């Protein structure tokens, strides 16, 4: 059966409206216990006949907008991208920061009832507080499949009945409630585990700098060794560089092989920015970025 998604994308490529489609594909993976595993992974489609491998279901967790700023994708003059509401927020920030042009992009918006978390949790953490089940910016809208809604309703019931906690939210609340000394120790404990694989940075759609400050060695701003003072500086700077930009897509924490509470700092900063400047990232493409603008009456009680 050909889905609406496949038909629309086929048309886009056939009529040469775009030369590349960033989408989700389904692959089988050999595992040793149990039957074959079906996993969802990003795919790059350039030929109309390949569009039949595109899928949209509740396991499409990745934020594909990470690829938009890559050299290989930028070489295409126009691309189409499959994106959920949360992913479109990061596309929105990329447009706002002049990294990509809206007219070079066809956004295939996906209405989403929530995606499934890849660990023990049946539903991804970010979906609990989702406000954008129907995307706010799109060119083509693909409805969530019937199957997805049904399955997630079941999942939701399971979540409620089991009183399943949201681990990301739990980590955030735990840190938020600590006293400052404990919070500092908690940061040291957690970030000393970081091995600097930079998965968080690479997977982040908004960490698009050609050369990251951590890779500079003359002068060296942040030590490369996965040791304490440097690790802490790296994570504080990461959180700061994403202040007013992070759209809370949760990819960094999902990618982190050491399970560090990476979104905790980002979440807090989003809260701070909302309280202090009534600013929310990723909603409007024509808004001035947070640090590229100011108000005369901005908070300054902390300044002597």
């Amino acid at each position, binding site marked *: 059966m050909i889905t609406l998604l496949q038909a629309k994308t086929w048309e886009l490529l056939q009529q040469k409206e775009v030369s590349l489609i960033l989408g989700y594909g389904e*692959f089988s*993976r*050999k*595992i*040793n*216990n149990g039957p074959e595993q079906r*996993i*969802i*992974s*990003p*795919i*790059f489609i350039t030929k109309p006949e390949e569009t039949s491998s595109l899928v949209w279901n509740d396991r499409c967790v*990745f934020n594909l907008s*990470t*690829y938009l700023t*890559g*050299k*290989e994708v930028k070489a295409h003059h126009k691309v189409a991208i499959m994106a959920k509401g949360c992913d479109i927020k990061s596309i929105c920030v990329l447009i706002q920061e002049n990294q990509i042009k809206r007219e070079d992009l066809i956004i295939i918006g996906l209405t989403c009832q929530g995606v499934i978390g890849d*660990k023990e949790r049946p539903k991804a953490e970010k979906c609990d507080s989702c406000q954008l089940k129907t995307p706010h910016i799109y060119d083509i809208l693909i409805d969530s499949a019937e199957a997805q809604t049904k399955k997630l309703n079941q999942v939701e019931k399971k979540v409620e009945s089991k009183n399943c906690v949201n681990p990301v939210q739990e980590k955030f609340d735990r840190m938020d409630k600590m006293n400052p000394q404990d919070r500092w120790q908690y940061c040291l404990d*957690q970030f000393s*585990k970081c*091995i*600097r*694989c*930079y*998965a968080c*940075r*690479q*997977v982040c759609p908004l960490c698009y700098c050609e*050369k990251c400050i951590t*890779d500079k*060695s003359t002068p*060296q701003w942040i*030590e*490369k*060794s*996965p*040791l304490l003072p*440097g690790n802490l500086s790296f994570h504080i700077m990461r959180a700061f560089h994403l202040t007013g930009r992070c759209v809370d897509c949760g*990819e960094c924490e*999902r*990618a982190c*092989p*050491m*399970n*560090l509470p990476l979104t905790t700092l980002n979440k807090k900063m989003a809260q701070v920015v909302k309280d202090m400047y009534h600013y929310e990232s990723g909603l409007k493409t024509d808004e001035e970025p947070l640090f590229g603008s100011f108000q005369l009456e901005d908070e300054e009680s902390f300044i002597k």
Partner: protein
Amino acid sequence: MTKLISRDNLKKLISKVLTSFQVIAPVNENNVSFFKRISVYEQIKWEDNNPTKSPKEFFFAPSDDLFRYQMKNKNILLREPSNHHDQRIILGIRPCDMAALNILDRVFLEDGKDLLYSALRDNTLLIGQSCRTPGKYCFCSSVGINPDDSQNMDLMLTDIEKNLFLVKVVSEKGEKFFSHFSSFFQEADATNGHTPVQTKEMVDYLKRGALFNVQNINEWLNENFEHPIWSEIAAKCIGCGVCTFFCPTCHCFDISDENVVYRDSSFQGVRRRIWDSCSFDHFTKMPMHQPRPTQDRRFRQRIMHKFKYFIDRFQQGACVGCGRCRSLCPVGIDIIEVLERIHCLSYQSHGVK
């Protein structure tokens, strides 16, 4: 030489050993399992398979101090780190990680000995454990490693009953350790065969055999440095270091001066050896040139290093089938998928062998 040890006795043994050795064993924190120095036996988390992080970091640390230096009035003072280390025991190392250590040995000990590595290797006793069930992502049998291989370990534990291990004393070092603590062990019953516990999955896993032939892959790689599959597979690679940092055999490093402090006319710092990864975009960056400017070339390097360059140099592949890279990749790149494709391509180009 084979002996028996009960779980209770193992606990007593480890508690005893903790007073005179550093004991490194698998633990679990934040839902991630890794090897860590423990202070009490209860910290150990016995799992069926490999911890997420390999024990590589205890021989080749993510950051090793090579030396400290101080420059003062044109004099250079150097201080090497002390190479005195406490005796260590690594407990619960699996055959694949052991095989990986042998691969690191070839890099760091053959042809010029790496002093840091060899000092750590010499003072460590390795107590391995064979696998009773395969991990979800394991493929050691495809690269020629047995899940009950005791090669190069000092002692190896094998589950034979619920709370009983068969202990194989493999090396001289192991024998010495055994004779020192022999009161904790029991004699193996010669009439009872003591068959190791194997789950049904393990039987299936061993029956299935290799998924690909390393020799064929090596031959195909010899001829296909340039091939469209590289860019096809690596298109979705985001260029993080997860696959290489968690790989028990990857051993590339960078050298960097850190902690540099300038004061008056002198400055001092420490020169460190730090893990590096071929998937980082600055890995081969030189002042005027970047020989691997795109991600597909970096990805190709990883496969080539494991299945071509290393075989050319050491007549042995540098993948041990632990499956860490395939289970941890944030975008789901699967090394088995890559190798199976290459395997198929090699059949197409050479016909069935």
